[in-house]
């Protein structure tokens, strides 16, 4: 039984990468730390359990990354995906600090590997965790144990008492029993609110019922809402999130990475009304991966169907569930529950618009359509080699961007713009400070590691003074 009577130096809310980095940094700086994770041990670590890599700046080749990836290019990538809706100073600070993130994680026992297959060709910009996020979490939790951090599972933090910009105590449910935890500094790292459907419904209405939550079901946003209701400054668009094209047959929660489908650039995609709605071949998939979830979320019924043929089926990673497969387009339509004549016409119109070109699967090629709306700008080949294959799609929500505002020391800012006396935040719960919209693969773990370390450092320093 943990000691609930004592006053801990630092309370860390959450058990994902952002929380663990903060807890470890604070403990290494000499603070006594208690960490509350809402989930039971096997499902610990939130969305971080499903991750694979983090994006880091590096001036030259490293053991696990090729070439170099410098601040300007990183910043440029970030500016582009966010369409400028970001905080340049904060973003650049994060980019520069990202250079040291892998070393920090390695010091906690995390092992990296060179990227091999099926990784959206990110070996230059991203460092991959051997075994993925679960292995990373195992290492971080072991480091916590080594440092004597009190780690409570099945412990949901329900409320933080905030008085005049100071957090004073936490109301928690520990193994189903109400408890109070007292502390000198708080680090909030409890993720976004994407698994809270009622909250999503406020912005998306009934459509929210059709969103698949890719990651942890524990991302209820309880502490995010709690802090925002107590005078903490809000940042970020509540309708913005990272979302990908998921298999429509995936579990509604926690289906993880294996549910995403990479077939879009090598297929044509129609909505429930059997109409194409976006250029499937606009750019290479790593750059378009993150927009398709949102695109499908905006379609009627939040569903879509990607149709392709035997010629293209080896160009993308296999799906977990078998694709629809038929010798005719009508056969595909029957399996997908669509109007056969309409689907045949869409495919025929598309085929007629395809101009000949040289197909190069990994780089934008000259295979495109002419006179078709919307066009398919690259990788457009006639869909006429049976058997035909099709994949049903739904939006898979990764995480929401609505956040608490922080400064470049990970201090939480109050509505009046002044930093809180003893509150810090890291990870998804502050992602909206930098991600106004859009996403860069591997940036979630970078945010968590960089701001987690800052938060842990700040909290420990506050306690010492």
């Amino acid at each position, binding site marked *: 039984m943990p000691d609930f009577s004592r006053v801990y130096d630092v309370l860390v809310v959450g058990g994902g990468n952002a929380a663990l980095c903060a807890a470890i940094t604070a403990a290494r700086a000499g603070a006594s730390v208690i960490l509350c994770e809402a989930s039971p041990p*096997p499902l610990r670590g939130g969305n971080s359990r499903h991750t694979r890599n983090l994006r880091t700046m590096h001036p030259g080749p490293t053991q696990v990354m090729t070439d170099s990836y410098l601040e300007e290019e990183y910043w440029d990538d970030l500016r582009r995906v966010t369409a400028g809706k970001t905080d340049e100073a904060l973003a650049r600070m994060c980019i520069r600090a990202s250079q040291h993130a892998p070393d920090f994680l390695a010091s906690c026992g995390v*092992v990296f590997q060179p990227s*091999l297959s099926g990784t959206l060709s990110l070996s230059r910009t991203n460092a991959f965790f051997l*075994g*993925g996020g*679960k*292995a990373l979490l*195992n290492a971080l939790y072991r480091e916590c144990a080594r440092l004597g951090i009190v780690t409570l599972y099945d412990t949901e933090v329900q409320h933080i008492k905030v008085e005049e910009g100071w957090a004073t105590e936490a109301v928690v449910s520990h193994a189903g029993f109400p408890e109070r935890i007292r502390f000198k500094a708080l680090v909030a790292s409890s993720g976004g609110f994407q698994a809270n459907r009622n909250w999503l419904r406020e912005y998306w209405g009934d459509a929210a019922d059709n969103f698949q939550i890719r990651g942890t079901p524990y991302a209820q946003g309880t502490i995010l809402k709690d802090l925002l209701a107590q005078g903490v400054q809000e940042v970020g668009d509540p309708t913005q999130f990272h979302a990908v094209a998921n298999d429509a047959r995936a579990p509604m929660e926690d289906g993880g990475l294996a549910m995403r489908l990479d077939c879009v650039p090598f297929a044509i995609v129609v909505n429930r009304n059997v109409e194409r709605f976006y250029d499937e071949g606009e750019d290479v998939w790593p750059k378009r991966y993150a927009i398709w979830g949102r695109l499908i979320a905006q379609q009627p019924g939040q569903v879509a169907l990607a149709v392709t043929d035997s010629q293209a089926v080896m160009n993308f990673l*296999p799906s*977990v569930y078998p694709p629809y497969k038929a010798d005719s387009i009508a056969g595909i339509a029957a399996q997908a529950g669509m109007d056969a004549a309409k689907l045949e016409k869409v495919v025929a119109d598309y085929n007629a618009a395809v101009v000949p070109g040289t197909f190069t699967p990994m780089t934008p090629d000259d295979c495109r359509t002419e006179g078709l709306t919307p066009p398919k700008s690259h990788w457009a080949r006639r869909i006429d080699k049976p058997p035909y294959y099709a994949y049903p799609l739904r939006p898979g929500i990764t995480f929401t961007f609505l956040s608490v505002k922080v400064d470049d020391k990970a201090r939480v800012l109050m509505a009046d713009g002044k930093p809180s006396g003893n509150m810090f935040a890291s990870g998804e719960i502050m992602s909206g400070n930098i991600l106004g919209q859009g996403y860069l693969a591997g940036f979630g773990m970078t945010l968590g590691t960089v701001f987690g370390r800052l938060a842990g450092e700040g909290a420990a320093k506050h306690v010492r003074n």
Partner: protein
Amino acid sequence: MSATEMNKLDALLREATVTESDAYQEARRQMAVCNACRYCEGYCAVFPAMAMRREFETADLTHLANLCHGCKGCYHACQYAPPHAFGINIPATFATIRQESYAQYAWPPAMGRAFEKNGTIVAGVATLFVTLALLLAVALVDPSKLWTAQTGTGAFFRIIPLWLINALAGASFGFAILAMAMGAIRYWRGTGGLGGPLTPAPAAEAAVDVLTLRNLGGGGHGCNDVDDSFAQQRRWLHQAMFYGFMLCFAATTTGAIYHHVFGWKSPHAFFSLPVQLGTWGGVLLCIGTAGLMRVKVITDPVPVARKLMGGEYAMLGLLFLIGSTGLLLLAVRHTGAMGFMLALHFGLVLSFFAVLPYSKMVHGVYRGIALLRNARERRAG
């Protein structure tokens, strides 16, 4: 009929007669998830081999399962491990398939049944042989020789005559080799054959994999021997057992050469080659087997196939007893306990030969083949 037609017919017949077990169906489901995920590709040879495939026929799954070294890395790293709904547990599933494939490819085929309740069978045979050896020694050997210190050349063979040793050991070992070779051929054919000429490069690569147990290294930093922390314990313990076993084998062989070629009779001096090989071999064998048993007792049980534990414990126990009775024999060889020890040791070794083709030991054969096929496949791209 041409050879290819024959093969096709073979395959059809096999499909018609072999209905897949739950473990195979479960493995196919799990492979579909892994193949879309691939997070574990850095751990071992299984995942890159998986990534070369889209469909998983029975033969593919048998091959992948025998390629798996049961290091448990991919279980502890799995985002979909139980209690997640997908319940991915590759080490346990593949271990079950390995066991089923040992049974399926055993020769003569009826002996496949010996892999059910393998622990009981191995332990039973060992007990039986030891009892027989002791009884025979008591019945056949002059009691004055059995219980008194025997010294000088040919001391051992006054207890158990050399011709008997040669006949029993030769027959049982010879049969074991035949049965395992037949098993290897049946396995090789059943899992798709070579598919091309055998060149030295992949064979060398597979040999290195076997001799270094590379795939029990977790991609370099170790395996999850006990829990989610990394270590190379099992690898080094298996190496101790493996090389200990080989040294013991070399000891026996050099002993035989000394006897038959040079006419030098045992017992040999402590610093002679056969005794040195046997001593160090025995020590390593004992350390390896005892250590592996310890790891088995304390390891996280979820990624382990419980059904197989009996056979593994029995084999570890048998090897430990062979090693320890060999060392004891050395210690007491100039005393009155020698006769008893020799009968005990000889009974254990004989029982090991007898169960060899129907025990955990066949994993070496099938893993070796799987590593060879994998080395070829990797080169072919």
